[in-house]
């Protein structure tokens, strides 16, 4: 369930505009390929908060 946050009306309208976009299988493949090029850096949370996640 996507719940993009914003504090600006124009961003809300942009976000809602996403409902009008239908991604094709090719779109998704290209997005996956591009995302795979990104090196993930850093942790999910600051250390103290991570310690509270039970993992």
């Amino acid at each position, binding site marked *: *369930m*996507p*719940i*993009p*946050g*914003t*504090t*600006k*009306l124009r961003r*809300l*309208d942009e*976000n*809602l505009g*996403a*409902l009008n976009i239908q991604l094709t299988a090719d779109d998704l493949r290209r997005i996956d390929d591009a995302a795979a090029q990104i090196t*993930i*850096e*850093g*942790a*999910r*949370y*600051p*250390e*103290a*908060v991570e*310690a*509270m996640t*039970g993992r």
Partner: protein
Amino acid sequence: MRTRTLGKNGPEVSALGLGCMGMSFSYGPPKDKHAMIGLIRAAVERGVTFFDTAEVYGPFVNEELVGEALAPVRDRVVIATKFGFNTQIDPRNVKAGERALDSRPEHIREVAEASLSSCLAASPPRRTPLGPRSRSPGYWPKSGGSCPSRARPSCAGWTRTSAR
């Protein structure tokens, strides 16, 4: 507005929800309350029926904001909230015997009741059922030095706030 069903038998909500955390918490100083109420109501006008908040956002004030904004349309919208933190404890400095997470059924019951009254009341009750604890300030990281800005840009803005 397209819709989705939450879970298998849950309520039907708009295909896109609105995350409300940044209106009060985590992304810098809280935004103007009246402007944010206007934004939430603008979302309702556009067909959004799903709104996300949590007890820790503020703490408390974001639930109250969302509750106040949605009170006039409470029968038409769904609010998601979460609870389980002890908002009195600074997670950076948890002392022996303290619980930063509090998942005891009695705690969950208490905070769930408090969240319900925050989210459902037209005039916020200021969480009076909770007693003194709820009137004390909550402690949250002000600026995590270890905060990975790419992974989670929001956390640097966490700040100490007072529950009303």
